[in-house]
């Protein structure tokens, strides 16, 4: 018995010892983990899981096996895998999404903490003004360093170039552009009375299309379009870039009042103010035109193509809102945490890697800020002219991709103005990369700043029923109804006093009277 016990104790000890050694080895291999909290727009990144026929067949130097771009796993998972293989510590991405810029801002002011967020231009401005950011490191901006896909790939038109927009507005080195685009009108050419109707923002207030056009349920986009309508003559007359920017960023009381009147007209005229339903309504043909961001326009046109409806995208002659969504590292999360900053910068770089840029563009329909040759190949693969196509022309993209880049494509998807040959309406390629003449009349819309409350007041005036506006007829009917029901209640309450002389105290009395 004693012997047995001894063996048991011995074997137990060996087991225990072994376990300790094993776990010790595990500890040595275990890396430290950095948590990266990313907050991006909803549906704004490739989630993978593509069908096999969705393979994008272009040269891909980043893929190990075979050619082409293919989304197997989500980009976030791919990033984690890629990062962990290359670094001596691990990263774990907590990925969350927001629906509107205001939603993100409110969450930040309520104390939610994120390391890397992707708001639009004006929200970037607001956050930068408030000092809630950490600038990107010098290494990140060094285009010669290997793996700096952002600095190498971003279009010199948008960032890192001498006259680039991010440099001009002072966002360069602070924010990194992710997607960009314009605003315009998606429309169904077959149902228009005259195609020149969509050449103006006035389409929204055009009574020939009563309740057939939708507008975004968003103060900024609605206000911008309204300023386009109000200043139509001026803007079409040709203004310098500066003047145009002043006109379209005007928040004087007089301008706001004028916009309010116009928006009230628009409200009576449009089908709806939509947050997301406009896409489906456009595809199903409930409406014939729709104010849209260019990326969603591409998505809508793709969807409609699948339903065999041909939709087009028009940038009105007055102006278009050139917008950007960019990555910003937030102070609370990143400051003083070198590894986390490194991970955040790696995340931006990974998204800017040309194959991932293509994946995202394919998946969400928006246009990446990356101007690599591979993105151009993807455009060519998508929209380039077929060999047997007869009417082709060169679509100039040199402003974005650099000298010498122009895409040979069919003319069927573009509408050329008589005389000048300028393109103001077109299909997917036009929406993704507006031509130079559209860029010329584009304006970056700045943050409203402290005028926001006035503009929101205007918006509430437009959207709410004002007691003062209720017509006397309605007042009459309502008060008559109220009086009637009050009278009815009185009659009911005092029914015994008024109609039945003595209140029947006992049932049998009443029957006897009968």
């Amino acid at each position, binding site marked *: 018995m004693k012997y047995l016990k001894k063996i048991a104790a011995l074997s137990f000890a060996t087991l225990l010892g072994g376990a300790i050694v094993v776990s010790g080895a595990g500890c040595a291999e275990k890396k430290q983990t950095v948590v990266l909290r990313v907050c991006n727009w909803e549906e704004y990144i490739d989630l993978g899981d593509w069908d096999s026929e969705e393979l994008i067949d272009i040269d891909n130097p980043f893929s190990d096996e075979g050619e082409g771009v293919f989304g197997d796993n989500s980009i976030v998972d791919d990033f984690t895998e890629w990062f962990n293989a290359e670094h001596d510590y691990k990263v774990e991405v907590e990925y969350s999404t927001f629906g509107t810029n205001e939603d993100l801002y409110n969450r930040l002011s309520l104390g939610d903490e994120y390391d890397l967020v992707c708001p639009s231009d004006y929200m970037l401005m607001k956050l930068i003004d408030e000092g809630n950011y950490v600038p990107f490191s010098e290494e990140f901006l060094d285009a010669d360093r290997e793996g700096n896909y952002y600095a190498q790939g971003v279009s010199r038109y948008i960032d890192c170039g001498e006259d680039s927009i991010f440099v001009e507005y002072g966002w360069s080195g602070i924010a990194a552009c992710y997607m960009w685009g314009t605003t315009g009108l998606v429309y169904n050419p077959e149902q228009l009375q005259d195609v020149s109707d969509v050449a103006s923002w006035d389409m929204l207030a055009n009574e020939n299309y009563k309740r057939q056009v939708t507008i975004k349920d968003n103060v900024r986009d609605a206000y911008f379009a309204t300023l386009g309508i109000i200043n139509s003559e001026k803007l079409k007359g040709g203004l310098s870039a500066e003047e145009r920017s002043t006109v379209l960023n005007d928040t004087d009381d007089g301008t706001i009042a004028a916009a309010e009147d116009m928006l009230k007209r628009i409200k009576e005229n449009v*089908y709806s103010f*939509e947050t997301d339903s406009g896409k489906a309504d456009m595809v199903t043909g409930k409406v014939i035109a729709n104010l849209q961001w260019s990326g969603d326009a591409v998505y809508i046109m793709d969807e409609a193509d699948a339903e065999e409806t041909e939709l087009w995208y028009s940038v009105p002659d007055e102006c278009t809102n050139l917008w950007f969504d960019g990555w910003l590292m937030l102070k609370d999360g990143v400051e003083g945490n070198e590894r986390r900053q490194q991970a955040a910068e790696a995340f931006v770089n990974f998204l800017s890697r040309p194959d991932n840029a293509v994946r995202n563009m394919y998946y969400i329909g928006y246009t990446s800020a990356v101007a690599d040759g591979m993105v151009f190949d993807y455009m060519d693969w998508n929209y380039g002219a077929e060999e047997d196509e007869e009417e082709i022309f060169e679509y100039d993209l040199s402003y974005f991709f650099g000298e010498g880049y122009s895409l040979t494509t069919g003319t069927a998807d573009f509408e050329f103005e008589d005389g000048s040959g300028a393109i103001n309406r077109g299909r997917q390629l036009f929406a993704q990369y507006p031509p130079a003449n559209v860029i010329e009349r584009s304006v970056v819309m700045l943050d409203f700043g402290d005028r*926001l409350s006035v503009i929101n007041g205007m918006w509430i005036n437009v959207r*709410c029923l*004002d007691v*003062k*506006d*209720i017509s006397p007829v309605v007042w009459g009917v309502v008060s008559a109804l109220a009086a009637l029901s009050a009278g009815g209640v009185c009659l009911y309450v005092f029914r015994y006093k008024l109609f039945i002389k003595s209140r029947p105290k006992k049932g049998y009395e009443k029957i006897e009277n009968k």
Partner: protein
Amino acid sequence: MKLRFNRKQLCIPYAVFLVFFVLAPLFVILYYAFTDGQGKISFSNFANFFTNTNTLGTLLYSFSLAIVTTLVCLVIAYPTAYILARSNLKKKYVLLLLFILPMWINFTLRITALKEILSLLEGNISAYPFLNSVIGMTYDFMPFMILPLYTSLLKLDKSLLEAASDLGGNKLTVFLRVTLPLSVPGIISGMTMVLLPSMTNYVVLDMLYNSTYIMGSLIGSYFSAYDWNNGSMISLVLLVIIFIVTLVTNRFSDKDSNARGAVL
């Protein structure tokens, strides 16, 4: 050691829930409602509510929408509940289930389906925003009206009805003098359950393309302009209004249970 619970301790979970998710947010709303942006105490939000014609107009609009919805619900639900409760069908629970069934489907899904149906019927649905909102809300809240009515009508003692008709009342008199007064508690609770949520349920309006704001969307628009103070004040006033409505209706139904005693 012996674990002992008395009845009071059993409500601890709910009390915790109440403190964290009802009371605490309420104090936050109170704080925001009576301060300005800088954290100083201010009554300007309160004054703003009653001087801003938009807010009052929206309140009126929400109220009329809610009242019309409630009345439509009542008119449709009462006969339904009456027939269901009165019927001698063995399978009336199955029938009731048919009316409750829509509640098991997500409501955005239901409203989306409704949108398509209305588009078929009306053509361009954006031309009738008020009507569509009423239809949408009626569709959404109908079960809340049917259920209390059904239970109060089911509870109704049949011998009372027999007695009434034995004593010479025709069918109409029996209904008006016995059934209807006895179902008032059901009517009241059904009405509160429909009236209150339909004052703020702006998702239905959004989905059915009513571009006029009701209280819920107005609060949302203040919040998206980072104006927590005015938004909170509107929520608070709305809360007080709802509280008053509940108080009044509670009294009403209490009085009627006394009235029932009188009938008996």
